[in-house]
């Protein structure tokens, strides 16, 4: 049987879903739309059932694109996702508003089970519920008392589900002859709301008694939304989070690096030499390493974001930030997607689904890739260590750290600038509002936090990971193969030069390797790019790096390692040293200050991430936006890099 879990936002719906399904849940999309559908199979009395989570809604009539999917399913009883049984979770502290959705679903004659959640909080607020009377009023819907946060009442719920699977009982209609209205008929929807609430109020008079309690004004809320303390606290929280993310992730990242290196060495020793071993050790394993290396940062960032979300603090962030980002065409709800993008744009862009306005959502996902993601960190750190001296400014600030900060800031600033331009260009398609509930503060449910983190890791590993690994393999193939005749010619030319003949044995070898790489497919590719990138101060090796990292930015470091590793004789030198010593043919250093900065700025802008493009295409259902992004950011990257080369 197909069972759906319904509920208002902030009622503990995801706690309940996680409690019922745990790690068995799988995330997919509702067919044809990009709305997440969490689903799990479970067995009761020898029968298999599937339970899926419906986006949190207040009414069957949608307020956003995401909610429209629920309307579409419920409108059409032959829909593949039309529920045969519904579980409706309601917040005991807010029966009136929660019962609105319940009576709508009940009037669609779907057999239901009602979960009355958070009665402890209701009791604290002086709300008493007469359960016996309540049950009499909806005789055909079993009411289950639960505390989904701590996991109380799970067995009672399963028994109630068993009962409804067998009996499939529905309640008498609340609104006689109710049928779902069309989306356009706003007046009738309002009439429905008035009629329903009148009935619910009448009905609740016998069920709920509210003991008068002294009105407690939330001092915490006043503090968190204060014109000074509100922003100070938010900045402080952000600062602590990013400090933790970057310092704590350094350790597991190092372990991952070492483990991959060991695995590559071990398999090189264990396997017979040949193309297959090369593929594994130089193609597949480094590719996998390139994926795993990001997991610690993504996991940590979402660990903190999930906690902020669970406690209800994020809604206060939306509340105080909305006015600040609105002039840039963004929404208070854009803050979380943009912050997530500082770990990885992929989960960030997917998080824009919570923005109800088409225009604000499009702008947010368009500028999200400008937020400096963790894939840029290896590129930035390598280049900073090459061209920025290890100095202190004013005795306290580390110059290298300041440069990294400036790059992050440049990304953020550019995101706002692009957003502002888009605001002037785009026309809003639908009327929409920022109508958001500010829920009570709660302690986080760790099960929910854990499941969110796992979910994001999975998302990153499979969405971005497959592309990164595939590109790494292609890269390996192109750099280890090339047209043989040209290579032979070049080698024989080299043999004739006096420079080669005078050189020592080891120097000879290194020259040969270098020539071989230069004449691989990838070397040829990089060289054809030279006329275009020369104004930026880049050589053919950087050209190779740019091309290969078009798929994913961090590949740049890997490519550089591959290119410079071809100098087998210098293998004991680090990549950094090899790059630092590298010179143009005219004898000047390749990585001088101008080139270094120009290259870093290039990476601030260029949309060098296939996975982002794929996700934007999926989220907007059109190639228009990813193509526009590539062109806009490609152009900006080139222009800004060129300017830097001139200035520095």
């Amino acid at each position, binding site marked *: 049987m197909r069972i759906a879990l319904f509920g208002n936002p902030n009622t503990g719906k995801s706690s309940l879903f996680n409690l019922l399904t745990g790690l068995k849940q799988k995330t997919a999309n509702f067919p044809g739309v990009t709305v997440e559908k969490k689903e799990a199979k479970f067995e009761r009395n020898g029968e298999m059932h599937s339970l899926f989570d419906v986006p949190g809604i*207040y*009414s069957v*009539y949608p*307020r956003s694109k995401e909610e429209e999917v629920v309307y579409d399913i419920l409108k059409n009883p032959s829909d593949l996702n039309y529920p045969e049984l519904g579980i409706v979770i309601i917040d005991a*502290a*807010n029966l*009136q*508003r929660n019962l*609105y959705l319940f009576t709508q679903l009940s009037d669609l004659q779907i057999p239901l089970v009602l979960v009355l959640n958070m009665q402890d909080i209701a009791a604290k*607020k002086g*709300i008493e519920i007469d359960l016996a009377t309540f049950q009499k009023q909806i005789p055909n819907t079993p009411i289950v008392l639960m505390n989904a946060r701590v996991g109380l009442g799970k067995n009672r719920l399963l028994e109630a589900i068993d009962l409804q699977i067998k009996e499939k009982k529905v309640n008498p209609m609340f609104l006689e002859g109710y049928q779902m209205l069309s989306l356009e008929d*706003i*007046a009738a*929807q*309002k009439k429905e*709301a*008035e009629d329903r*609430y009148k009935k619910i109020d009448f009905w609740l008079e016998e069920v709920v008694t509210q003991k008068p309690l002294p009105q407690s*004004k*939330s001092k915490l*809320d*006043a503090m968190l*939304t*204060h*014109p000074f303390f*509100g*922003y100070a606290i938010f900045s402080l929280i952000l600062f602590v989070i990013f400090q933790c993310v970057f310092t704590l992730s350094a350790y597991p990242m190092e372990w991952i690096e070492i483990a991959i290196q060991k695995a590559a060495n071990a398999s090189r020793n264990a396997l017979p030499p040949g193309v297959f071993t090369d593929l594994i050790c130089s193609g597949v394993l480094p590719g996998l390493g390139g994926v795993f290396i990001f997991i610690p940062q993504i996991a940590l960032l979402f660990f903190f974001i999930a906690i902020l979300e669970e406690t209800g603090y994020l*809604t206060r962030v*939306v*509340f*105080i930030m*909305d*006015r*600040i980002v609105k002039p840039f065409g963004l929404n*208070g709800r854009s803050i979380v997607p943009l912050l997530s993008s500082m770990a990885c744009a992929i989960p960030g862009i997917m998080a824009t689904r919570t923005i109800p306005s088409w225009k604000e959502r499009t702008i947010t996902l368009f500028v999200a890739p400008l937020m400096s993601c963790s894939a840029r960190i290896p590129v930035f750190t390598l280049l900073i260590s090459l061209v920025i001296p290890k100095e202190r400014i004013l005795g306290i600030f580390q110059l290298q750290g300041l440069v990294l900060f400036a790059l992050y800031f440049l990304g953020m600033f550019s995101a706002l600038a692009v957003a502002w331009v888009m605001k002037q260009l785009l026309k809003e398609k639908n*009327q929409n*509002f*920022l*109508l*958001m*509930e*500010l*829920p009570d503060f709660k302690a986080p449910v760790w099960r929910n936090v854990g499941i969110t983190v796992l979910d994001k890791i999975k998302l990153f590993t499979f969405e971005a990971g497959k592309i990164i690994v595939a590109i790494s393999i292609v890269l390996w193939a192109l750099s280890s193969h090339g047209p043989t005749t040209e290579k032979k010619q070049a080698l024989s030319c080299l043999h004739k030069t006096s420079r080669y003949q005078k050189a020592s044995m080891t120097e000879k070898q290194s020259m040969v390797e270098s020539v071989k790489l230069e004449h691989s497919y990838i070397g040829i590719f990089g060289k054809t790019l030279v006329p275009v990138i020369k104004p930026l101060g880049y050589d053919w090796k950087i050209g190779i790096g740019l091309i290969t990292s078009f798929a994913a930015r961090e590949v740049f470091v890997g490519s550089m390692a591959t290119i410079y590793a071809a100098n087998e004789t210098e293998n004991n030198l680090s990549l950094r040293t090899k790059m630092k010593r590298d010179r143009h043919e005219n004898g000047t250093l390749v990585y001088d200050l101008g080139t270094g900065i120009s290259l870093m700025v290039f990476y601030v802008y260029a949309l060098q991430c296939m996975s982002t493009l794929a996700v934007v295409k999926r989220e907007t259902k059109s190639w228009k936006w990813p193509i526009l992004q590539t062109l806009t950011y490609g152009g900006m990257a080139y222009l800004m890099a060129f300017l830097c080369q001139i200035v520095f």
Partner: protein
Amino acid sequence: MKLNLLSLGQSAILKSISNPLFSTKLAELGLIEGTRFSLILKAPFNGPIAIHFGNTTLSIRSEEANYLLVDKVK
């Protein structure tokens, strides 16, 4: 008077909403003409406001709060 003119901590009764779609969405949340509520928070720089009714705290952008006509409760 317009909701925006209400000051922090004051209570009011909703009289009417001049935007039909907004009015419908608020009604679905239980904020219907005649409902009593209080203004409990104002975001800085003329940002959103938060009102409390029943057991719901709802935030509304200040320009949308202009759609709401209310009667102040003494």
